[in-house]
């Protein structure tokens, strides 16, 4: 865990309300693993918004630039989107546990909904570089305009299946629909799933994985004040078969095995 004031090296819109931003930090880049996150604060004396905001590490560029992919949804992300190359920001990271890598005989399958692509991109880079898998990724977006990183993912060599809610690209429907089709068709294969996206999607994916007895890791979000294990704010209800009542997303996660979570509470 490091804290650094550093400079933004780029910040550009890649789709409606979606931005890629990079900042230099060799040390943090070296330490970061897929699935980990950063707490990001625009440096300044203003106290509104007050808290830093959590973002997954989306990729590492040139060994020393950390990249995040983010969507403007409120005050903090809107301000972030206005910052420019050379502006100072304060980052703490890498935080959280990160994705466990697949075992020898496990076949990974990536499932992303919307901005869920953010941490899975980094994971897929790693999986392809290290293990040379035939990596399959299911992507769901609400509409074709929100499809980001298509070329990047394709050129990594991923096999993409895309669904859009409005049918403007790929299969009309949810990402779980195309996942279902695949799992039914290839019921002989027992892949392990890595999923990130809106909580409703993660719930659906997890319930499927649990019922099919597949290993499934999900990247969860919750309201965070600190990201550092100080506030106990980021609680998420544990499945009642465990003896911890709550997990803390920033410390115990953000990556969880599907069966660890009490999905009924979400």
């Amino acid at each position, binding site marked *: 865990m490091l804290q650094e004031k550093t400079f933004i090296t780029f910040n550009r819109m890649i789709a409606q309300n979606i931005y890629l931003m990079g900042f230099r930090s060799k040390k943090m880049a070296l330490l970061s693993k897929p699935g980990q996150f950063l707490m990001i604060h625009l440096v300044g004396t203003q106290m509104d*918004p*007050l808290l830093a905001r959590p973002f997954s590490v989306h990729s590492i560029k040139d060994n020393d630039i950390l990249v995040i992919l983010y969507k403007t949804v409120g005050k903090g992300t809107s301000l972030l989107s206005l910052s420019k190359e050379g502006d100072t920001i304060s980052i*703490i990271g890498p935080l959280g546990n990160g994705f466990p890598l697949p075992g020898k005989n496990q076949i990974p399958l990536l499932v992303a909904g919307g901005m869920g692509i953010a941490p899975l991109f980094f994971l897929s880079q790693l999986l392809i570089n290290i293990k040379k898998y035939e990596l399959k990724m299911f992507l769901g977006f609400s509409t074709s305009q929100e499809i980001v990183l298509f070329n990047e993912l394709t050129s990594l060599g991923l096999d993409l299946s895309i669904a859009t809610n409005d049918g403007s690209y790929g299969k009309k429907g949810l990402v779980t629909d195309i996942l279902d089709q695949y799992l039914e068709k290839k019921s002989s294969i027992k892949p392990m799933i890595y999923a990130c996206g809106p909580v409703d999607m993660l719930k659906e994916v997890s319930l499927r994985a649990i019922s099919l007895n597949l290993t499934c890791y999900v990247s969860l979000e919750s309201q965070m004040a*600190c990201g550092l294990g100080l506030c106990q704010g980021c609680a998420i209800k544990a499945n009642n078969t465990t003896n911890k009542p*709550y997990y803390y997303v920033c410390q115990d996660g953000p990556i969880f095995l599907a069966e660890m979570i009490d999905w009924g509470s979400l």
Partner: protein
Amino acid sequence: MPKTPNLSVEIGGLILKNPVITASGTFGYGNELNQLINLSSLGAIIVKGLSLEPMPGNPPPRIVETPCGILNSIGLANVGIKAFIKEKLPALHKIKTPIIANIYGHSMSEYAKITKIIEDTEKIAALEVNISCPNVEKGGMAFGTDSYTAAKVTEHVKKNTTKPVIVKLTPNVTDITSIAVAVESAGAQALSVTNTILGMAVDVPTRKPKLANIIGGLSGPAIKPLALYLVYKVANRVKIPVIGLGGIMNYEDALEFLIVGATAIQIGTATFVNPKTAIEVVDGLHNYCLRKKIHTINQITGSLKEYGESNEKS
């Protein structure tokens, strides 16, 4: 050559090397920031509120940001005093900073029981008694809104310990001084002013409270003016030291609290914004004293001037 200023302060017999303390509930169990800051530079560390038995805390969402502040409804989620001593405290043994336990009981006798356990735990230097948590149903703030029960809790704790007892007051009362005086008479050796203010927030699209618990406690810079006022009032009324907190973000905020009468200060929400805040406040106070040729930080405590007064002295 300028003399190194003496930042040390005394709280109920306990000497702190500087007046900067980390606030309960905002510094985990004390060791979480070990990789980022030198914990031994702090005046003291107050750990998360501890109860006799583990408490799960409230359902999420437990945190929401508000203008210049945050609302929390953690609900005193904690591992319990025994697990704390067994599992968390050992990591703090090498740290040369007094560890203060913040304690919370559902009843008078629970306060007494936790106190006894702490009495036997050498590494815990003092107790901060939380009679002001807005986020638990039984006890909590109720103890702190009434002079009589506030004094009773204090007595129960005092009877069972030889360690310094700090009582943490709630701002959610008509007259904080009457409670401060009652607690002082009951033997408290210091007061922490203040805990969080009650508050809530609503998510308009869903028309639901933003906190699952509906109500939470407000902290951060938003409450600084109130906290400062309460410290001013209490410090002018009691003889024991007052530890000021509420929205302190930097050393200048800390100085405001010292000036109105605080002997020491705590850093709470600011640690979430910047985990180095407490350390930066220590440095800031040190440099301020150097710059202003102030030999001991105690000289600042209660040095508020009248509005009309000339300011030649400063």
